[in-house]
C-alpha cells in the first residue's frame, strides 16, 4: 500500500493559488507558513551577525571590525534573535498551525486578527531592518538608560519602534490563543485531555498578554525621553536609570519563559510520541507550565543584583529564582520517567528532544548558580552569563523548535524529509552547539567580560574553540533548510500518521483540509492513549 500513497485531493495548500491567496489568507495553517518564512529570514539575519562576532573573537586583538561596529553587531544580533525569532518562533509557527487542530476547531477564534498579527510583526521587522541598514544601534538589546536616551547617537528610535510594534503581534497572538483554547474546544476535549503543548502554549500566551504591554510602555518612554527630552530615567532631572531596568526586566525576564515554555510543550509531545506512552504525571507537567509562567513574573530583580538593589530585595528575588527550578525540574524528571521502559524509537524529532533535555538541564542548573547572589556578583557581565542564556535560548528553544518542525513537517507539508540527513544534521547541531557555548562557561568564569571586541591573549584557545563550534553549528542549521525545502517537492508522501502518534492532528489528512477536519471530531479519551496504528509511510 505504501508505494501507491497519494496526497489528499483537497488540502489547505492547494485551496487557492497565487500570492493573494497567501497574503490575504485567514487560514491559521497558511499564516503559520507566512510566519515560518519570516522568522527563518530573521534567524539567518541574526545568525549572520553571530558569524561576524565569532570571526572577530577568533583573535584577541580587535582586528576585523571596529569597536563601534562590534557594539552594533551584538546589539542587532540580540534584537533580531530575541524579538524577531525566539519569541515568535514556536508560538507563531507551530502554535498557529497546531492550536486549532489539536483542540478540534476549524480555526483560531479571530482569523482576521491572526493575519493582522503577522502584518504587525512584518512592519515591526521592517522598522528594525531599517535601523540596521541605516547604521544600526549600539545600546545592547537591553537599551539601558541613560546611554540609550542621552548618550547613544545610533538608531535607537527606529529599533525601539520596531520592538514596540512587534510586541502587539505577540499580544494579539497570545490573546487569540487564550480565547481559542477557552471557547473553541471540540466536544469532549476537556482541559485535562488537551495535549501538553496546548498547556504550555496557554501559559506562554498568559505571559505574552500580561508582560508585553509593559515593555511596550517602557520603550515608548525611552523614545519620548529621546525625542521630546521628557524626563523619566534621566538623573539630570532626578530620574532613576534603575527604574528603567525594573520595567525592562519585568517583561524581559518572563520573555525567557515565552521562549522556552513552548519548546517544553513540544518536548512533551515528542517524548510521548517516540516512547509511545502517556506522559508520566500529565497534570504535574501541565501545572508546571502555569507555575513557570506565574513564578517567572516574580524574579526580574535577579538581573539587578549589581545595580544598587537593596540586599533584602536581592535575597527575595534570589529565593524566588531558585523556586523556578522546581517546576522546571518537574518537567525534566517527568520526561525522563516517561522514557523509562518506553518503546523509544530514535527518529530525528526524538534526537532533538534528548538534546533539549540535556542542554536545558545544563542551562537550568547554571541558572541556579546565577540565582545565588554571591556567584552572580562574580560572573555578572561575563561570558558565563552569555553561555547560560544561550543554553536556554539556543539549546532549549531552537532544539525544541527544530524538533517540533521535524515532527510536524509531514503534517504541514504532507511529505517526509530524508531521515538519514536529518539525523546527521541533528548530531552536527548538538556537537556544534556545545563546542560553541561550553567554552564560554569556562572563559566567563575565568573573567572574560561580554560585549568587548578584544580580549587578553590567554583566553584565545577557548575563544577559538567557540568560534570553531559556531561554524559547525552554522552548517548544522543550513542542512535542514536544504532537505526540508527539497522534501516539499521530492519527499515521499507521508500519509496521515507516519509516526503512529496520538493526537487529533494525526487523525486528519496530511496536509489537512482548509477546515482541518471533514467533520468536527468528538474526543473520548485522554491525550497520549497508545498504541496508535501508523497510517501511511513509516517515517
Amino acid at each position, binding site marked *: 500500500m505504501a508505494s501507491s500513497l497519494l496526497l489528499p485531493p483537497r488540502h489547505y495548500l492547494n485551496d487557492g493559488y497565487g500570492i493573494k491567496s497567501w497574503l490575504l489568507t485567514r487560514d491559521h495553517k497558511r499564516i503559520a507558513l507566512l510566519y515560518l518564512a519570516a522568522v527563518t529570514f530573521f534567524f539567518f539575519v541574526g545568525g549572520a551577525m553571530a558569524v561576524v562576532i565569532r570571526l572577530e573573537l577568533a583573535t584577541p586583538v580587535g582586528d576585523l571590525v571596529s569597536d563601534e561596529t562590534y557594539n552594533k553587531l551584538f546589539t542587532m544580533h540580540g534584537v533580531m534573535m530575541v524579538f524577531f525569532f525566539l519569541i515568535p518562533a514556536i508560538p507563531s509557527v507551530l502554535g498557529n498551525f497546531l492550536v486549532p487542530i489539536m483542540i478540534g*476547531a*476549524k*480555526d*483560531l*477564534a*479571530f*482569523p482576521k*486578527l491572526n493575519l493582522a498579527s503577522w502584518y504587525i510583526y512584518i512592519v515591526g521587522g521592517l522598522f528594525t531592518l531599517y535601523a540596521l541598514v541605516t547604521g544600526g544601534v549600539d545600546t545592547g538589546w537591553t537599551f539601558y538608560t541613560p546611554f540609550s536616551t542621552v548618550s547613544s547617537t545610533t538608531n535607537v528610535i527606529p529599533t525601539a519602534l520596531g520592538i514596540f510594534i512587534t510586541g502587539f503581534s505577540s*499580544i494579539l497572538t497570545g*490573546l*487569540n490563543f*487564550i*480565547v*481559542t483554547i*477557552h*471557547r*473553541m474546544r471540540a466536544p469532549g476535549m476537556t482541559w485535562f485531555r488537551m495535549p501538553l503543548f496546548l498547556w504550555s502554549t496557554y501559559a506562554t500566551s498568559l505571559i505574552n*498578554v*500580561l*508582560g*508585553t*504591554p*509593559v515593555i*511596550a*510602555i*517602557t520603550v*515608548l*518612554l525611552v523614545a*519620548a*525621553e529621546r525625542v*521630546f*527630552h*521628557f*524626563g*523619566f530615567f534621566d538623573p*539630570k*532631572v*532626578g*530620574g*532613576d536609570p534603575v*527604574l528603567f531596568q525594573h*520595567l525592562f526586566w519585568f517583561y524581559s525576564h518572563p520573555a525567557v519563559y515565552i521562549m522556552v515554555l513552548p519548546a517544553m510543550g513540544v518536548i512533551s509531545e515528542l517524548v510521548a510520541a517516540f516512547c509511545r506512552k502517556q506522559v508520566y504525571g500529565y497534570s504535574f507537567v501541565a501545572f508546571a507550565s502555569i507555575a513557570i509562567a506565574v513564578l517567572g513574573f516574580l524574579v526580574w530583580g535577579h538581573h539587578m543584583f549589581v545595580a544598587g538593589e537593596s540586599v533584602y530585595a536581592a535575597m527575595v528575588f534570589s529565593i524566588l529564582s531558585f523556586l523556578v527550578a522546581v517546576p522546571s525540574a518537574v518537567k525534566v524528571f517527568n520526561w525522563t520517567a516517561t522514557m523509562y521502559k518506553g518503546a523509544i524509537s530514535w527518529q530525528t524529532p526524538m534526537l532533538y528532544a534528548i538534546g533539549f533535555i540535556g542542554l536545558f538541564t545544563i542551562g537550568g542548573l547554571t541558572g541556579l548558580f546565577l540565582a545565588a547572589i554571591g556567584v552572580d556578583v562574580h560572573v555578572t557581565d561575563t561570558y558565563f552569563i552569555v553561555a547560560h542564556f544561550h543554553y536556554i535560548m539556543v539549546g532549549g528553544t531552537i532544539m525544541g523548535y527544530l524538533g517540533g518542525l521535524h515532527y510536524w513537517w509531514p503534517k504541514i507539508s504532507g511529505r517526509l524529509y530524508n531521515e538519514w540527513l536529518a539525523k546527521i544534521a541533528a548530531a552536527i547541531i548538538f556537537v556544534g552547539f556545545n563546542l560553541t557555548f561550553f567554552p564560554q562557561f569556562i572563559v566567563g568564569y575565568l573573567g572574560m567580560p561580554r560585549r568587548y571586541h578584544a580580549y587578553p591573549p590567554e583566553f584565545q584557545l577557548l575563544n577559538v574553540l567557540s568560534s570553531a563550534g559556531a561554524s559547525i553549528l552554522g552548517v548544522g542549521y543550513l542542512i535542514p533548510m536544504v532537505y526540508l525545502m527539497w522534501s516539499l517537492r521530492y519527499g515521499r508522501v507521508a500519509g496521515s500518521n507516519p509516526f503512529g502518534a496520538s493526537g487529533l492532528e494525526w487523525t486528519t489528512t496530511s496536509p489537512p483540509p482548509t*477546515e482541518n477536519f471533514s467533520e468536527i471530531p468528538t474526543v473520548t479519551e485522554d491525550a497520549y492513549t497508545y498504541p496508535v496504528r501508523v497510517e501511511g509511510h513509516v517515517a
Partner: protein
Amino acid sequence: MSPDPAAHHHPALAHHFADLEQQKEAAALGMWLFLVTEVLFFGGLFTVYSVYRSWYPEAFAAASHEMVVWAGTTNTVVLITSSLTMALAVRAAQVGERRVVMWFLAATMLLGLAFLGIKAFEYYTEFAEHHVPGPGFAFEPAYARHAQIFFSLYFVMTGLHALHMLIGLGLMAVMFHWVWRGTITREYSSPIEISGLYWHFVDIVWIFLFPLLYLIGRHAH
C-alpha cells in the same frame, strides 16, 4: 449548543463558530483580555508615577497646583456622562431600538469630542506657561528639576489616554455606520456591547488620572 436553529444560519455568523452564542462569548473574552493588556500598559506608567510621587512629593504637589482644575473637573463630568450614554446605547441595541442606538452613539461621540477639545485647551495653556518638559521648561527654581518628571508623566499619561479616546471615537463611528446600515440587530448586538467595554475602560483610566494629576496634594502648596 444554542436552542435556536436560526442562530446557525445568521449572516453575521463566521464559518468557524458553531453558533452566535459561541461567537459572542469569544469576542467578549477577547475584549476583556485586551483590556487586561491595557491595564498592564497603563500600569507601567502608574508605577513610574508612584515611584516619583513618593520620592518628590513637594515638587509633585507644586506641579499639580499648576493644573487647570476646572477643566479637569469638567472633563471628568463629560466622560462620566459619555459612559452613561454608551450604556444606554448598549441597552437600546439589545432591545433592537435602532434609532435610539444611533442617538446615544452620536451623543457619546459628541461628549468624547468635547473632552478632547477641553484637553487641547489645557495643552495649549501648559504650552503657553512653558510647562512642556525639555529645554524651554520654566518652573519655580526650587522644584524645577523634579517638576519636569511630573509634566513628562502628565503629557505621556494624558496623551496616551487621549489617543485611546481617538481610537474609541473611530470605533463609535464604525458602530454608528453598522447600526445605520442594519448590521446590528437585536440578535447581533455584541459589537456594540464590546465597543462599550472599551469605552468604559478608557473612562476608568481617566477616573484614576484625574485625582493623581489634578487633586492629590494640591492644597498643600
